[in-house]
């Protein structure tokens, strides 16, 4: 049986860590409240944005726009593929970072191309991929905390610029979607080039919509705007999932710390009782021996 001092040290250690996990739980739950509020406010925008772009691409006439270039002449292994991965700035968020990183790695494994370029939002993913030796854009430094429209615009501009100058041929976005308040999962979507849905329209027999002043001009403005909104929505959703996962992880940690403390408490009491019993036996034995000595 472990001795009393060892157990006491252990209990103290666990209590200290529990204080931290509990504090982190409180912090992340208050942050989550804020993040949820923005998520709820942004959700209609995010949903509508995707719906309308879906519609617009459905009704768009044929045009030569760089955003639609599929660049099929470039063979699979030479394609320059960019991944925009949204991770957290800090760890200790349960499996949040792990899931996103794993999704990104799976996605990268699907393509035979070696020209991949990663754009990572958040420090955890950045450090991970740098250690792994994957090409990460070094100047792409953005925090995942409190997403703003401003940051989303900068990110989308960087990516669009690389796409337009043919430094990227395909761009994927990997982020964490909040399915329900207790469940989140990583999602990967292709953001560039845009898929035109010409064939579906022909089948439906729908006519082109009018683009004012001209389809090209509208698309030139609309696509950056759409991308900015999309990235903003994804960042908001990821941030909310991150806080949620962290809250759950910290709650679990606090709970298991409490269980451990309970067990250790029992063990400590047993050890203490054992020590007392032993002392009594020793004293009693000593007294008996003394008595025997006097008699003889």
């Amino acid at each position, binding site marked *: 049986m472990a001795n009393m001092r060892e157990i006491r040290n252990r209990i103290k250690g666990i209590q200290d860590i529990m204080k931290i996990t509990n504090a982190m739980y409180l912090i992340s739950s208050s942050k989550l409240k804020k993040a949820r509020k*923005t998520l709820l*406010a*942004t959700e*209609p*925008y995010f949903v*509508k*944005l995707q719906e*309308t772009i879906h*519609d*617009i691409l459905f*009704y*768009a006439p044929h045009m030569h726009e760089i955003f639609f270039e599929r660049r099929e002449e470039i063979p699979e292994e030479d394609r320059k593929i960019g991944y925009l991965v949204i991770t957290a700035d800090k760890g200790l968020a349960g499996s949040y970072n792990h899931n996103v990183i794993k999704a990104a790695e799976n996605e990268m494994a699907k393509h035979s191309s070696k020209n991949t370029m990663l754009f990572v939002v958040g420090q955890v993913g950045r450090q991970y991929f740098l250690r792994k030796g994957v090409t990460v854009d070094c100047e792409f430094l953005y925090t995942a905390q409190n997403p703003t*429209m401003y940051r989303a615009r900068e990110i989308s*501009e960087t990516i669009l610029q690389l796409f337009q100058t043919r430094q990227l041929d395909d761009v994927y976005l990997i982020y964490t979607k909040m399915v329900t308040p207790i469940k989140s999962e990583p999602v990967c979507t292709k953001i560039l080039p845009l898929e035109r849905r010409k064939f579906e329209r022909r089948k439906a027999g729908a*006519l082109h*919509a*009018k*683009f*004012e*002043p001209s389809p090209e*001009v*509208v698309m030139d*403005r*609309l696509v950056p*705007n*759409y991308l900015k*909104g999309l990235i*903003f929505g994804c960042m908001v959703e990821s941030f909310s999932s991150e806080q949620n996962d962290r809250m759950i992880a910290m709650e679990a940690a606090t709970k298991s710390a409490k269980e451990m403390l309970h067990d250790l408490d029992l063990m400590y009491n047993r050890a203490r009782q054992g020590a007392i019993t032993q002392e009594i036996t020793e004293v009693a034995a000593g007294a008996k021996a003394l008595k025997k000595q006097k008699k003889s």
Partner: protein
Amino acid sequence: MAKTFLLEIIASDRVFFTGQCESLIFPGMDGEHGILANHERTVTCIDAGELKYKIDGEWFYAAVSDGYAEVSGDHVVIIADTVEKPEEIDVKRAEEAKIRAEERLRQKQSIMEYYHTQVALNKAMNRLKVNQRHLK
């Protein structure tokens, strides 16, 4: 009563307005666009400016920033970064933003920065304009 259509105005941080409306005027890239019910299916962009819509004969105004509009017969969706009512505009903040942008325009900048500043200046001036026109 005039024929109405469903209008949805959605900003990045909230749903600004949804409901039936008789007439809508928004700032496009090449001037103002007016929309009535049964309009042709159209997609167009919105510049920063003043947007107005008519319900039961009464006009409502708002300041919008960049975005786009999808018009299809009896349904119009406007998606913009920000949409604000005249009384919601923070005049002090807009004025500060305007001064900041003007100052930055005097500095040497890259083309990208120049565009950003211009957009910022545009937004600030539009906010001030809409606020002044409808609150005084």
